[in-house]
């Protein structure tokens, strides 16, 4: 059981690390939102399921309630995270920020 928990935790950390690297590597505001807002969804799902499994090891009512709360955290983040990401993106479009494109980069290079 502990091995499964450790594997899940490392899987989640892998996605979180990927998200951070993505924020640094991608070229502009809009593309950076992709790893920032969303690689977290997989990372969060894996780490939270690892934690709830770890807590459920000695099964009592209180550990079950705590695990349920952790599952609820996952559900609420899955509901609010896309809304927040969309709001930031929409704010960028409304402010008139042009998306980075390959063609645009070639134009600049020429």
């Amino acid at each position, binding site marked *: 059981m502990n091995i499964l928990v450790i594997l899940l935790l490392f899987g989640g950390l892998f996605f979180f690390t990927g998200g951070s690297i993505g924020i640094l*590597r991608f*070229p502009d505001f809009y593309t950076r939102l992709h790893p920032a807002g969303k690689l977290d969804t997989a990372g969060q799902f894996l780490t939270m399921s690892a934690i709830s499994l770890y807590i459920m090891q000695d099964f009592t009512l209180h550990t079950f309630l705590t695990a349920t709360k952790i599952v609820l955290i996952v559900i609420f983040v899955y509901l609010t995270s*896309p809304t927040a990401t969309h709001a930031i993106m929409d704010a960028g479009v409304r402010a008139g920020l042009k998306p980075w494109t390959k063609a645009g980069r070639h134009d600049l290079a020429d």
Partner: protein
Amino acid sequence: MDKDYHTSFGNNLSPRNPSKLSRPKRFNITFIISFLILFALWIIFSGRFDGFHITLGLISSAIVAAFSGDLMFTSRNARSIFLLWLRMTTYIPWLLYQIFLANLHVMYLVLHPRMMELINPKIIQFDSRLKSEYSRMVFANSITLTPGTITVNVNALGRFSVHCIDDPSGQPLPGKMEEKIAHVFKE
């Protein structure tokens, strides 16, 4: 023109049309379902089962459900709400699987040494056949949850603007996801 406006305005206010003026029933099925959900959340979050906390939970859930019970549901028919949720539970595992696949794809892009050549960010537009606001909201949120695509805007006619990070992420839209949501909402 002016007279038309006044007569239609008067008709809306006249008591001859009681269905529009009567207030919605307080204790309908949407109130009961919202109350049960809120009270279950209260029990989970408080974790105490003595009379004081249960009573507080009952009172506050009833107040919140009375104010906002009709926000969560589009239908007032218990059977159709139940069937909608049943179809929703078949959709959610598929969505989770898609999210996982797309996460792996974005991870591959992030860690690829020649990332700048692989990505091709652009905003694509397409018309959705989904009609109701609720199903469009679910579709837009599902698009945003799947990494590689973010919904920028949905207008009143159902035209979606989606920012996608490379060609393979944007290609399957609207496609299968829209079909599944249309099946869930029977559209």
